């Protein structure tokens, strides 16, 4: 599959991927934080600090995306990852489709 690679391209590709992954991890962290907050194992002060730290992380990621001009690239990666997951799930829930596809391909 021919892809034109130059340094800018590569930067957007690699950087986009890295930041997309950082965002996904950050989302997971957020979820964990909320669970702990709801679980009542944290003091209010701890929740306050946790919230501030996560907020800073959020802002930092937004800054980097702006600075490097990769906001759209990151969105593309995440949408792409979503689509891939959707496709896999779709095949799992709908094995008939998978079978039909492989038949068409002559496998």
């Amino acid at each position: 599959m021919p892809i034109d690679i130059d340094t800018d391209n590569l930067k957007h590709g690699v950087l986009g991927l890295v930041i997309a992954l950082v965002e996904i991890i950050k989302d997971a962290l957020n979820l964990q934080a909320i669970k702990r907050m709801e679980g009542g194992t944290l003091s209010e002060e701890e929740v306050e600090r946790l919230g501030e730290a996560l907020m800073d992380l959020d802002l930092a990621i937004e800054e980097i995306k702006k600075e490097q001009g990769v906001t759209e690239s990151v969105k593309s990666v995440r949408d792409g990852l979503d689509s891939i997951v959707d496709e896999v799930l779709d095949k799992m829930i709908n094995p008939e489709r998978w079978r039909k596809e492989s038949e068409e391909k002559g496998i």
Partner: protein
Amino acid sequence: MAEARYLYCIVEGSEEDITLGNIGIEGSRVYAIPYQDLCAVVHNCSPEPYKSEDQEKFKLWLTTHAKVVEVAWERFGTVLPLGFDTIIKGEEGIAPDENLKKWLKGDYENLRQKLAKLKDRAEFGVQVFWDPKIISEWVIETSPEIKKLSEEIKSKSKGLAYMYKQKLENLLKKELEKEADRYFKVFYEQIKRCVDQIKVEKTKKNEEDKQMLLNLSCLLFKGKSKILGEELEKINHLKGFFVRFTGPWPPYSFV
């Protein structure tokens, strides 16, 4: 170099020497190759697929393909359309026409049945979108848990407010998913009642202010599209919802 046949569609027809003129890709002469009471609408081409880096050119080929199928549809009443770049080849000692006829013979019953099922019918595309912002507002208003949370956030300190905001967004997302599911089922049933056959297509993630909930291909009598249109009008009228209704198309999705 053996010649090949670019295949547009299969139609019912038994006239001799049917030709549709030079309306094919790259101005090729489009004509029909008969087998019993079926015809294959083709043009002669070299045995390689149509490929181009030039987007405009490629777009033109695609719209030409579509146009030929439409013309055949108009002339012959019912068509079994083929996808772009379906090219029948010839082999050692076998002309492409022979290959074509062999296939028509082998699949004859199947093709006849399909043509019968599609008689007088057309395909229509239906897509329903919603504006996530408007729907979110509505969800916040009508869900006591979420409404209470959004009120509480106003009085919290920075870090706490952030955490609560995350929680709110999560709850909102879950509620939206539930609503999307509910509306999907409701609209699907509503539309299914107005059509003969229905196919669920993949939704696309394109726009910021519109989210696709439902993507359907519908097969129905051309005349009945008005009834479907009325149902869709009702959906389009709902606050925050938007419908895209396209067609009539040759029945690409139902062959």
